[in-house]
């Protein structure tokens, strides 16, 4: 031990330290920049509002802005809307002998008080109004919209996967047939990835009109941008040993990709594809906001009409769907990979 310490050669060694003065300098600069940025982002207002809300909840304050905003929404949101109730006189072609499943007709007497222009007296007249009540009608409608949303996402993912598989070949540096094709394919994929779904959906709705087509295309474009890039990177990173072995048998590019590359990248491709499906289902609920079909379209309409009870139903359905999806995709992934 002591003779090691006395070795003059070893005493001159300098070992790398985990951080030095340069790291500290960078840390201070990051801190300074974030202080300036926080001021611009109105962090002070956020802090004071959250403080007010905290004081209100413990009873030290009468009201706060957050409290008022949340109260007005939650008061209208609960109970959430499950039933659908529509006046019959506004519905055309309802066959009253054959009502829809689980529904009944409710008759309500409505008193209307009005001023009689001749006698100048207030008169009250009673009119009968009839409603068709479907006890779970709205929930069923929302579930139908959710299924439409999932259909949009599945189609978008499926088309994106099928297009990305050959595209990845062109985007992979080691298998692309020509540098120009490689550069072209890479730029195309980057372009698709750089346009957010919501923006492309906005334009696609102009081109294709309201409805799921615009949604499917918007999601497909972005998904190709994502999958094309990551599929290609998997091909580039694949172990070259089986590829060389197959090349030595005289096999062509397609056989090498199919037999030596695809089996290797398949687990990763499955993971990426499941992620894209998962993401597309979440995005499909959002792109409806600009009219591209699915539950988002309904959500936006009800939100703009301040029907928060119906918004609540939709939020619950979306939440449960995404949660169920998490469980299903986790199981699927475990079995496949």
């Amino acid at each position, binding site marked *: 031990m002591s003779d090691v310490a006395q070795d003059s050669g070893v005493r001159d060694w300098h070992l790398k330290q985990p951080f030095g003065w340069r790291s500290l300098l960078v840390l201070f600069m990051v801190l300074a920049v974030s202080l300036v940025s926080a001021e611009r982002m109105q962090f002070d207002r956020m802090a004071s509002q959250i403080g007010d809300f905290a004081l209100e909840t413990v009873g030290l304050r009468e009201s706060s802005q957050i409290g008022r905003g949340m109260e007005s929404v939650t008061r209208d949101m609960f109970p959430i809307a499950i039933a659908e109730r529509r006046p019959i006189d506004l519905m055309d072609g309802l066959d009253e002998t054959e009502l829809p499943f689980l529904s009944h007709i409710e008759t309500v007497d409505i008193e209307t008080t009005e001023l009689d222009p001749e006698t100048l007296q207030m008169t009250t007249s009673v009119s009968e109004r009839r409603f068709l009540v479907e006890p779970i009608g709205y929930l069923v409608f929302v579930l139908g919209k959710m299924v439409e949303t999932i259909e949009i996402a599945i189609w978008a993912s499926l088309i994106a996967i099928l297009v990305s598989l050959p595209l990845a070949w062109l985007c992979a540096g080691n298998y692309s047939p020509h540098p120009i094709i490689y550069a072209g394919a890479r730029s195309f994929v980057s372009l698709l990835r750089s346009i957010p779904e919501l923006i492309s959906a906005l334009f696609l709705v102009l081109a294709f009109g309201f409805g799921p087509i615009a949604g499917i295309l918007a999601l497909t474009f972005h998904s190709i941008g994502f999958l094309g890039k990551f599929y290609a990177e998997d091909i580039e990173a694949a172990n070259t040993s089986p590829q060389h*072995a197959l090349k030595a048998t*005289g*096999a062509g590019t397609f056989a090498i990709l199919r*037999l030596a590359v695809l089996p290797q990248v398949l687990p990763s491709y499955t993971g990426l594809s499941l992620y894209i499906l998962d993401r597309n289902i979440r995005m499909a609920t959002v792109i409806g906001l600009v009219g591209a079909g699915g539950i988002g379209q309904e959500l936006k309409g009800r939100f703009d009409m301040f029907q928060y009870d119906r918004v609540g139903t939709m939020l619950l359905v979306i939440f449960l769907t995404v949660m169920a999806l998490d469980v299903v995709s986790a199981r699927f992934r475990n079995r496949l990979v």
Partner: protein
Amino acid sequence: MTDEKPQAPDAPALELSGVFKSYKNGPAVLENFSLSIAPGCFCVILGSSGSGKSTLLKCIAGLTEPDAGDIRLHGKPLTRKRLRRVGMVHQDFGLSDRLTAAQNVMSGLAATLSAWRVALQLYPDQIQRQACALLSRVGLSENHANRRASKLSGGQKQRVGIARALISDPSLILADEPVASLDPKSSVEIMTLLKSAAQERGAAVLCSLHQIDLARKYADRIIGLSHGAIVFDGPPTALTREEMQAIFDMDDSSTIIRMEVA
């Protein structure tokens, strides 16, 4: 070593003349390299790491282009199509881990099949039977044949590798350090298998090794390679201590050479 290029049926299984190869910004790995191997000869290339063994084999297998020079199989220039009759066994086995042993063996004939058969991995019955026969020949069972390559041991993987090299009915088998990642017992088994399987078919073997004992035991002919040049060429019995030192750039005190010479 012959300089003429005979077209006769007993032309050398493999003939290299004046092969040059260097990598980018590096010194020449092979410089004016010439070599001729008779049909059915089990030829071992002995050399240390960086001596050019792998580069030589890669040039022959079409995995890298030589800068200059002529490579002939049975007197005919090497083309992509003739390359199909050259089997290759790899140091790291070169198997697709998620394909079964049998699928790996059959992939050796993928070059001869149509694209849709490759895409669906639908091999003709005759190829399937051939793969079964070869897997049984290299000592594997039906159970092994249907197992993913990743579930096989190192020795079993190399057996699959040999079966894949044999399925194209090769007249020349290249083996790049076939036992470098195997234990001594498996190494002996694999080398024995490689030699007997090649003998049955009358195929020539060009096998690179760095183990002197294995080279002595199996080779009909040893070629000592050092810095891309042949420093020894002859039967194992002619390999002397001085020549081993020249091959491995070592002095007398090296343990392995003392062991070998003792």
